């Protein structure tokens, strides 16, 4: 479904990704793990169209994405719940969600089914639907960011560090929901520093180090891999 081949991205002179090749097949959940600064967020942002590609290609459903703007990629079905949530603080929870329907919804069109699904997944958002974004707790903001991405009717969901800054119990709660989204059949690419959580939910994983893929394989294998255990699982 998604393919990155030999992708190179740089910020000025600093090369953030050195020829990354990665595949996400329809229906699977892929985890991208690695330390701070490994280039995980850069890769997701590049798939979303926020970064210029210096070399290599990205394709989605077999057609090239390289020349498409960010909002065109959302229209094709790539939705991104960004690092740091980036919800709209001056809009209510409901407005944040409804806004994300604009890629597919004609003026006056309905969005009742989509919002009901998000509220079923995250009942807390329903309780807070009239509250402004800034007044939510960190966990609620993360739920809103994921909910907002789901409102875009995605076929590929990009999640960037959904556990960032959350208490362990909240992070587990968020991942429990990610698991439910996965079981609904949606294809997911999740970036995460919390390797335990990410590998528990994923089918396959890639390990990124200083802009290069150093290891890839089934999530279960990665969990057993001595290098991963030593570097990321602390055992």
């Amino acid at each position: 479904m998604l393919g990155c081949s030999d992708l190179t991205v740089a910020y000025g002179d600093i090369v953030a990704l050195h020829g990354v090749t990665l595949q996400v097949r329809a229906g699977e959940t892929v985890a991208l793990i690695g330390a701070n600064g490994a280039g995980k967020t850069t890769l997701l942002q590049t798939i979303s169209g926020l970064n210029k590609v210096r070399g290599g290609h990205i394709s989605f459903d077999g057609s090239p994405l390289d020349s498409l703007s960010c909002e065109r990629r959302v229209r094709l079905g790539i939705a991104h719940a960004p690092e740091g949530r980036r919800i709209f603080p001056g809009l209510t929870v409901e407005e944040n969600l409804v806004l994300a329907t604009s890629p597919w919804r004609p003026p006056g069109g309905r969005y009742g089914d989509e919002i009901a699904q998000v509220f079923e997944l995250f009942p807390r958002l329903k309780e807070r639907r009239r509250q402004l974004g800034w007044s939510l707790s960190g966990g609620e903001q993360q739920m809103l960011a994921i909910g907002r991405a789901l409102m875009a009717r995605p076929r590929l969901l990009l999640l960037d560090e959904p556990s960032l800054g959350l208490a362990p119990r909240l992070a587990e709660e968020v991942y429990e929901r990610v698991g439910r989204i996965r079981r609904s059949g949606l294809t997911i690419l999740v970036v995460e520093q919390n390797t335990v959580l990410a590998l528990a939910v994923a089918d396959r994983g890639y390990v990124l180090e200083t802009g290069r893929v150093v290891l890839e394989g089934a999530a279960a294998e990665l969990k057993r891999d001595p290098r991963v255990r030593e570097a990321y699982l602390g055992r």
Partner: protein
Amino acid sequence: MRSLLGVAALLIVGLALSLIVSEYTLRLLNLAVVAAVAVVGLNFAFGYAGLISLGHAAFVGLGAYVLAILTTKLGWSPWLAAVPAVIGTGLAAAVLGYPLLRLKGHYLALATLGLNVSFGIVATNWIDLTGGTNGIANIPGLTIAGHELSGERPFLWFGLAVLAALALIAAVIHRSRYGRAMMAVRDDETAAAMTGINVTRMRVAAFTLSALYAAVAGCLFATHIHFISPDDFSYAHSITHLAMLIVGGEATIAGAILGAVLLTFLPEWLRVLGDAYLAFFGLMTLAILIFLPTGIVGLATRWVRRPAPPQADAAIGAEEASRP
């Protein structure tokens, strides 16, 4: 519903005032209504889309000059001349917007300020067309069904009706998907793009809408005063428009109108201060920015409803620090 009530209140208060106040106050009310139309427009750019424009008066002036030239040089009726005045100003804003709105924050403020200064230079020096510093006199007034809106009172009624209609349209846009999209762009443009919003197009749309309202204000101004000159549209007026919006309460239509009325009357009420008025005005604006960041309207709603947001992007900024 709330906006309908608000507009009804505006019309009732305006009509009641129009029957009891002096001719001089009526004239000030008219100026306040014209300013309110311009500031409700500026609210699209600054309040919703977060674009700092210091060139709003140039669009008021463009509308006024097109109407004045078409009526005095070509003998068009002011009604007819208002159509190209408003549409032409909107087009100018859209064409200027595409390159200009790539800039942000201070840079955009400076660029729009430059736009306003350039407008003044053109209006002053293109003497054949604009009359230079002598301006354009004898602009005909509006007539409705054979009755000229000659006095201050009939003009105020007309101006109030225009303001009420434009405020309602603004309220509808505010609540529509386009209003939400503009505010999303203001809050976080990267996240807005990730949500599938065409950021550039929303910005240009907000800027163009604000210019359309400005042009209507310019047409009202020209047909009310019957005389325009470059001084009427200097950048100082743009700064006043921005101050009106901030004092009243940015991102609210009621705030735009309240601010326009207050800052039109304040210099009159404080005439005793003489030249010290500017110092007072500066201190007052400073005090409002510090103690009432959401303006007069914010003060009212703070008591009635939810608390005002703190520095909205602080929470996000804190997490930016941990980017890889």
